[in-house]
């Protein structure tokens, strides 16, 4: 009874603290939203590449043959990812000057005897020079050239083979060379048309899980988690060792204060979660049934409790405030990363995936996704409740043991 009374006392005290420092509350509320907004903004500007300038690539053609023209065409056509490149033929000093002036992202050199080496099967190296001040674009050029040279390599093996057999036939050299050029052109054209091999289709699940819905839900989940750590940390204060000792004399344990802090943070964040969820639903225009709200509510309650237990366990374990905050931040990042909100879990390595069913965040997020995005009418609370219970037991054990060995 005394135990609960004390917890209630501390909850009331925490509530007072929140009211006293109400000026910081809007900041706490907005901080995660600003962070998520910033990330979304960076992502959107990064991926909307339409109005970006084309990548400037220089080309030094020391071979000057018809074949190099074809290869040039192949490079232009192979530029993937929707971004396009602008190739300009230059002399070597010109290219070097433009690279220095940041007018080029890199340049490619076709060496002398490029074509004849290709036909005879001699090894050829295509030098690419990147611009150190534009590393991303330089590596894009390199990737592009690697793709192109892989195509040429495959074609080249065939041409060298044709050349080998043609030599055994009564053909004169001019005729053979003409035929080889014909074949080279054919193979390049053939490579350009490679997309004909596949019939491409995009499958969408318009109703619920478009990327916008997917990432809005993830964003909400991240905001919720940052609120949890922010309010929990806000309620932590620098009570001196002396005051702590005096409180211990009155029989106040650390566990009581931790639980009170958890409870206060929980009550605040659950309220915020409810309000923000309604906003989320309006925003995404989700259709949910009455039971769904109950299910989502239960999952969020269990998730928040387990998360706060993690915070409290770390606080009971680590005495240095700095280190404790660092560990709590690391905990938060790990939880968010493993939840599957940021990176879908099926991209994780197998051993991580098999571990995920034991991680409360992954479980919670999985069921949230199932209910909200995949319209399922079921959620399995058992693993999640077990984890919440286990977390509570660990917290109690940790803080009791710590209390006993406190100086």
């Amino acid at each position, binding site marked *: 009874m005394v135990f609960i009374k004390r917890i209630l006392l501390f909850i009331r005290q925490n509530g007072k603290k929140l009211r006293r420092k109400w000026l910081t509350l809007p900041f706490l509320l907005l901080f995660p939203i600003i*962070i998520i907004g910033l990330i979304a903004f*960076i*992502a959107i*500007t*990064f*991926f*909307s*590449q339409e109005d*970006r*300038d084309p990548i400037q690539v220089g080309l030094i053609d020391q071979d000057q043959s018809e074949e190099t023209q074809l290869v040039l065409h192949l490079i232009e056509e192979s530029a993937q990812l929707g971004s396009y490149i602008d190739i300009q033929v230059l002399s070597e000093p010109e290219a070097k000057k433009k690279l220095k002036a940041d007018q080029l992202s890199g340049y490619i050199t076709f060496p002398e005897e490029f074509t004849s080496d*290709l036909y005879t*099967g001699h*090894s*050829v*190296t295509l*030098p*690419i020079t*990147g611009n*150190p001040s534009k*590393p991303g674009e330089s*590596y894009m050029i*390199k990737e592009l050239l*690697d*793709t192109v*040279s*892989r*195509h*040429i*390599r*495959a074609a*080249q093996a*065939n041409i060298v*083979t044709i050349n*080998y*057999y043609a030599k055994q*036939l009564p053909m004169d050299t001019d005729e053979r060379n003409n035929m080889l050029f014909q074949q080279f052109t*054919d*193979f390049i054209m*053939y490579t350009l048309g490679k*997309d004909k*091999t*596949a*019939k*491409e*289709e*995009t*499958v969408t*699940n318009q109703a619920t899980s*478009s*990327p916008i819905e*997917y990432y809005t839900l993830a964003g909400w989940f991240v905001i919720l988690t940052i609120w949890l750590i922010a309010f929990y940390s806000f309620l*932590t204060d620098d009570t001196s060792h002396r005051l702590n000792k005096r409180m211990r004399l009155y029989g106040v344990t650390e566990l009581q204060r931790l639980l009170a802090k958890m409870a206060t943070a929980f009550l605040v964040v659950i309220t915020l979660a409810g309000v923000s969820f309604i906003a989320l639903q309006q925003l995404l225009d989700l259709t949910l049934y009455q039971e769904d709200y109950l299910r989502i509510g239960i999952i969020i309650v269990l998730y928040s409790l387990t998360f706060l237990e993690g915070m409290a366990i770390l606080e009971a374990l680590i005495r240095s*405030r700095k*280190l404790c905050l660092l560990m709590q*931040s690391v905990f938060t990042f790990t939880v968010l990363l493993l939840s599957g909100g940021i990176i879908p879990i*099926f*991209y*994780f*390595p197998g*051993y991580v995936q098999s571990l995920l069913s034991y991680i409360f965040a992954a479980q919670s997020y999985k069921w949230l996704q199932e209910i909200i995005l995949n319209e399922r009418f079921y959620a399995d609370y058992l693993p999640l409740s077990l984890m919440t219970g286990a977390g509570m037991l660990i917290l109690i054990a940790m803080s009791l043991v710590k209390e006993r060995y406190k100086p």
Partner: protein
Amino acid sequence: MRYILQTRLMHWKKHWLALLFWLLFPLAATTAILFITNTVKEDSSIPVGIVMEDQSDEAVNLLESIKSTEFIQVSELDKRDALQQLKKHQLDSVFVIRNNYGSGIRQNNRNQLIGAYQSDLSFAYTPVKEMLLSYIQQETGRMKAVHTIQDLAKHYDKEDHFTEEDITAKADKVQSSQDLLNTAFTFGKNKVEKDDEPELISIWGLWIIFTLLSTLLLFDWIVHEKRASVKSRFAFTRYSFKHYLILNSILYTILGFMVDMGTISLFWILFHEKISIWSWIVFRMLLNTAVFLFANWFKHFFVYYTSAFAVTLVLAVGSGAILPISGITDKWPWTKIVNPLHPILNDGYWNVTSWFIVILAILWYYRKENFHAAR
């Protein structure tokens, strides 16, 4: 200065473990994150659904070659299941090997041999498709060469002279025995080795963010000592409190430089990554000045700690150290001159924020001392 050093050494002696931890934290955390991301990157695989409508030898060969690709994890499904799973975002992409695949390859007809399905959340569809197409391309290319050679032979009345098996064997041999066409990538003055792929995360970006955090947390002595009851006694010593703070932060800055030097040489040895020395020196000086001013602003150390983490998070997200912000800097170039981490991330020295920090520091130094012995 000697007394300052002596008293600080006494303090460090008592807290050497914490000091060492926070000094080495940027190095350790950067290395750990690089190690983890590299391991996960190597071990992670793309889940791809394959639907086999054709069971010919050619189709089975294709399946085998997809299965042997390292980064792809194949599940064989029927079409309905595969598309259902793709819709629920449980597969990255689905490829259907159509029932005309084998005959198409043999007859040198390559149109629509496979069906390729992606969802609107497929991150790896393009590289997987390219891989598949280049394999098919190689197969059909071989067939094309065989047809060409046999046609030639027919033209010179030497039919049956060259068999299909001979020709494909020869072509395979040519392709595997000779290093036919390579690319050599140079980047500035250094040649980039084949295996030196760019890291997923910039190593210096990570290190800068962790250095920022650790410097902020190391400078908490300012918040602690400003609160100390001994503060009023400074009026009776040779040093004013202001000079005490400045001299001590110089000590911390020297310590920072020493640890940085170790880190930079270690990164060079371990990862062959280097940084412009002058921008590092300027960065370190400005960082410590900024942190010094920032810490002077706080009265409660827990508020200081949480603010330190908040500032670090904002800069980690928004400065371009970890997330690519080229989309923003291309559109709004002025963001480059107000981003405090832009100079160090781009081998520069300073921008507007640097001058802002310097001006603030001068203002701080020449403002009126607001305590006296009488108080």
